[in-house]
């Protein structure tokens, strides 16, 4: 993060401004990715007028960085009307899409409207692997065509790759493909539970051995020794720090108007159809509770050596049952990185042992 961006975030935090927001325009999708956390039925999406009104309120509240995502955003027939309104309000806009509906005309319109970047999901450089994840034939070739149209317009494109057991062998291929296309790429080994709490998607994730290999790949992490080093015990400053920006400078609104701290944190804080965006942001009891939490309050984590550079997600912790608890997936990542089990992994191991003793 640049110095100016850090200063911007710090100012927003001090003033209590929701600097960034994600708005999902729809949960409907034209792909059926095996790891997706959403229910794709339409349960009553906000209308065009409701979304435009919400955008007005978001701008008024100070939202600057706006991510429009889904579902697949281009399935909304009013997508460009919404995008045009959002740009008129001078938001800095990032789009998340599978891009299969983007052709030359759409790419030109996106360029015209001054979108900052477009993130496109690509899971493999091989059609048989990518299409087997999206469950849509030819989806890779259509997404790649779209990336070329977007690049031809001079737009910034980022390939986002979610790493699972199914595509573990292909991340180098995706990176090579990104280089060939002249776009950035990101790699994320996090598969999340479904928003309704169903955790079956987690079985698709990579195992510890694969994570270890990943974290020791110099081309991905840079200095392996530094990346995999066990961090020092947290000092008082770290213990007093905030666990995450969710609910502090960031928030999420669903296609139905539900307001959450983050897309991965399904704790309802209000609904923008019934309340003003700024009122929810300022007055929600749920957000106040989140804002009261410091690292020192996290059970287990506050005593854990990994806490200073752990990727712990409060939303995943909430889905595991306690927003002040660990997100075990991230404990596993810290373990794979350093070889040292986290405090919560150790206690989980003990409780499993106890359980076995009871069964005996």
């Amino acid at each position, binding site marked *: 993060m640049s110095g100016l961006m850090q200063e911007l975030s710090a100012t927003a935090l001090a003033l209590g401004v929701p600097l960034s927001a994600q708005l999902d325009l729809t949960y409907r999708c034209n792909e059926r990715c095996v790891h997706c956390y959403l229910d794709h039925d339409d349960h009553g999406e906000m209308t065009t007028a409701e979304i435009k009104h919400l955008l007005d309120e978001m701008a008024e509240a100070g939202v600057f960085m706006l991510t429009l995502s889904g579902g697949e955003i281009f399935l909304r027939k009013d997508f460009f009307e919404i995008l045009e309104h959002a740009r008129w*309000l*001078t*938001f800095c806009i990032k789009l998340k899409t599978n891009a299969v509906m983007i052709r030359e005309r759409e790419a030109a319109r996106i360029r015209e409207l001054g979108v900052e970047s477009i993130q496109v999901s690509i899971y493999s450089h091989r059609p048989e692997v990518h299409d087997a994840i999206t469950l849509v034939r030819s989806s890779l070739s259509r997404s790649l065509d779209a990336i070329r149209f977007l690049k031809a317009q001079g737009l910034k494109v980022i390939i986002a790759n979610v790493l699972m057991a199914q595509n573990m062998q292909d991340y180098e291929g995706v990176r090579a493909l990104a280089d060939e296309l002249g776009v950035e790429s990101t790699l994320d080994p996090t598969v999340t539970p479904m928003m309704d709490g169903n955790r079956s998607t987690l079985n698709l994730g990579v195992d510890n051995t694969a994570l270890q290999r990943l974290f020791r790949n110099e081309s991905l992490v840079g200095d392996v020794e530094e990346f995999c080093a066990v961090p020092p015990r947290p000092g008082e400053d770290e213990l007093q720090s905030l666990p995450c920006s969710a609910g502090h400078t960031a928030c999420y609104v669903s296609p139905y108007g539900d307001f959450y701290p983050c897309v991965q944190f399904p704790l309802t804080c209000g609904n923008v159809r019934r309340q003003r965006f700024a009122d929810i942001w300022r007055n929600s009891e749920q957000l106040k509770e989140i804002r009261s939490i410091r690292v020192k309050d996290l059970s287990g984590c506050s005593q854990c050596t990994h806490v200073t550079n752990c990727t712990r997600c409060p939303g995943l912790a909430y889905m595991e049952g306690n927003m002040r608890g660990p997100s075990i997936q991230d404990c596993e990542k810290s373990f794979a990185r350093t070889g040292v089990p986290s405090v919560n992994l150790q206690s989980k191991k003990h409780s499993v042992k106890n359980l076995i003793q009871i069964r005996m």
Partner: protein
Amino acid sequence: MSKLYVARNIRVAARILDGEMRIMSGKDSTLFTLNKTATTIWQAADGATPLDEIVERRICPEYEVEPAAALQDAETLARELAAHGILEVSENPIFSLNPRAANRPAGEFR
């Protein structure tokens, strides 16, 4: 001497935070923080008002500066901002193809 017209580039993102205008360049996603004078020029840059008029009406009364010196500084600033893709500068009025752009907010929502 010919007039200089300035218009906000419609591809940038902008928001006022803590009294300062924050601009994200549409060219390379670089973030800028405009000082008070630059913010005043940015907000007044509608493509139709000449820069000397902006300086005379908005800058001089507020900062108690000589119009000639202020205009010279404002021109330098406007060209710098144009180099970063934040403003458009022209010797003729700048009309956007999008009629809504004339009424476009300058990011001052708070």
